[in-house]
């Protein structure tokens, strides 16, 4: 495989190899010299059409720990904002000798399109409401790290599934890795064909919590309220927000995950967000190792 565009493209062996590689590379962060020479002389371009400091920084750090040269190409203040097409930008990066392009874009499928236009590897760092493969991989990594396995793990993904690239990538990946996923959301925030997906669906968070090893909360944007996806923040939070009381309904070993940024008081209470069972900061740490693994596996070989 040359690109990482969708977790649906990963076989179980490939996904496991990525997680295993990340586990080895995690040690690098604990060393005095946090750097490996592996990608010396390779150029990685971060092409970000959406602001996402956390994802961009994570990729940048991962590439730098592997000794790659990193160029940050953000849409603001560049020719992109002057109306240059994605294709022309791609050809420009190609001409500069980019070995890999990490792309974040508001349009679903932008990474797929880019892969048609450049010779190097394309890493999808989030495309519209489609996918965010490295997020799902770091989520799986975190679950395995915390709970020791993925096979048979019961994972509830709660929130705005309809607009979530994190949910799509996670459903595909976790299913491949043998976990059981339940999507929890009001019907308005679920895709119409969700019954054809390889996961369970529930409208009732309280019913799902006691049967979950992992509860992954997704950000819900208040603007969805204006589009009538739910009546009010209060009602959403009452039905689908995770607070201390609900945390108590979860099995004692179960963990709470969130891809960030969190909206405290909306989908997650401060009490839960700050609890040791919440893995938000671990996810960020693991994200660097995971992205190192992906960069190594895509660029490290022939």
């Amino acid at each position, binding site marked *: 495989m040359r690109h990482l565009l969708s977790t649906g493209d990963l076989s179980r062996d490939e996904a496991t190899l990525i997680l295993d590689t990340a586990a080895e590379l995690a040690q690098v962060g604990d060393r005095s010299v946090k750097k490996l020479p592996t990608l010396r002389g390779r150029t990685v371009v971060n092409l970000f059409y959406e602001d996402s400091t956390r994802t961009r920084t994570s990729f940048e750090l991962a590439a730098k720990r592997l000794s790659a040269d990193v160029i940050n190409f953000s849409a603001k203040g560049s020719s992109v904002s002057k109306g240059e*097409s994605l294709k022309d930008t791609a050809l420009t990066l190609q001409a500069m000798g980019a070995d890999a392009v990490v792309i974040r874009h508001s349009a*679903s499928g932008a990474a797929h399109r880019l892969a048609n236009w450049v010779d190097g590897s394309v890493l999808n760092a989030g495309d519209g409401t489609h996918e965010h493969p490295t997020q799902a991989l770091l989520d799986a990594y975190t679950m395995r790290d915390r709970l020791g396995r993925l096979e048979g793990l019961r994972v509830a993904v709660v929130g705005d599934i309809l607009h979530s690239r994190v949910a*799509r990538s996670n459903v595909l990946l976790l299913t491949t890795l043998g976990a059981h996923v339940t999507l929890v959301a009001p019907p308005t925030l679920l895709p119409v*064909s969700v019954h054809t997906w390889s996961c369970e669906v529930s409208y009732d968070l309280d019913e799902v919590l006691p049967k979950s090893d992992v509860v992954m909360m997704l950000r819900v944007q208040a603007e969805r309220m204006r589009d009538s996806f739910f009546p009010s923040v209060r009602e959403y939070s009452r039905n689908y927000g995770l607070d201390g009381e609900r945390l108590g309904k979860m099995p004692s070993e179960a963990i709470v995950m969130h891809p960030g940024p969190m909206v405290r008081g909306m989908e997650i209470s401060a009490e839960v967000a700050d609890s040791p069972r919440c893995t938000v900061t671990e996810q960020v740490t693991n994200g660097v190792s995971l992205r190192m693994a992906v960069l190594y596996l895509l660029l490290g070989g022939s």
Partner: protein
Amino acid sequence: MPDTNGPHLIRGARPLGGDPVDLLFVDGRIAAIGPDLEAPEGARTVDATGLIALPGLVDLHTHLREPGREDAETVASGSRSAAMGGYTSVHAMANTDPVADTAGVVEQVWRLGREAGYCDVRPVGAVTVGLAGEQLSEIGAMADSAAQVRVFSDDGICVSDALLMRRALEYVKAFDGVIAQHAQEPRLTEGAQMNEGCVSDRLGLPGWPAVAEEAIIARDCLLAQHVGSRLHVCHVSTKGSVDIIRWAKERGCDVTAEVTPHHLLLTDELVESYDPIYKVNPPLRTAEDVQALREGLADGTIDIVATDHAPHPVEAKETEWSTAAMGMVGLETALAVVQRTMVDTGLLTWAQVADRMSTAPARIGRVDGHGRELAVGEPANVVLYDPAAPVEIDGGAMVTKSSNTPFRGMTLPGGVRATFLRGVPTVLEGKIK
């Protein structure tokens, strides 16, 4: 204007797919039909062995882009493309810039078509001023103009205001006009990018539910029946729409409907590539919808095939999906797609193809001199089609100014060998004159 006047003797063509005969065109009319006709002096003989002769095709739904987007297509280039596809008359949609909402614009388009001379260009008038959906345009003036407009449409945009739609339907009764509705409930399709279903959910593209089309069609059929007007439904794309139109016809509503060649063949699975060459309005639907559309066209529920030929420059398609333009070129591939989907599958005879692609659209658009029988004395508007000449489609090799064909790389079963407009060849030996 092609300079090949004079008599033409067509040898061995099969009218409507029947037995081979000769046809003689003199002075723009069919002068004789029969076996072994004698060539008059100066006549040019065309060997049509194995070719099917159909009345010149009539398209009720073409975007010629002029005025305004001459980089994508002009009346001249678009009508040449039409001739290449076997068309002798096309209806130029109103969503130009400026919009064809006045007698001045429709006459300009009509005149450009006459000057080009490749087919009879019939302008479609906008229903509302600027396609804004607020105020009726000067429909009467366009009807009375030199362009003799009979079809009115805000195509691209739905006349969603029920009251405005009712008034438009009523108003065109005065001159036997018809409202061609682009059925798309706007609120249900805000930001929509493709058919709503399994594929859109997987791809994370905002979906375009079938109900957004079907709800408008149902409403319009009821309205048209209530006020006793003619309604034409553009580019029907869903199974539910076919069902509703069938029901409306049964209860006596004067409704006609069209389907495009691409909706007869392609499905939303193609969007998996995120290649906007497959982006179109209405969107490609599911295999079940395709099947229902074919059956609807076969049983007459859907009256005609119309191309919705929508040329776009390369840069409008070589982009990410959500910013790409909607539409596909289709004039030059329409007949071959209909052969593949309807004739080769046994759903339509060639005589029925002549009805769906020539006679019926001419009747709906009230186009004189087109869609006539292949009979002595009729205008010699004729297409000669080779149903056994498979060709791999290449957008770059087309006559249209644009190349956004969704059939590129596919092999279609046949091709137009010759088109005659009032006895004058616009296409001969498969090449534009």
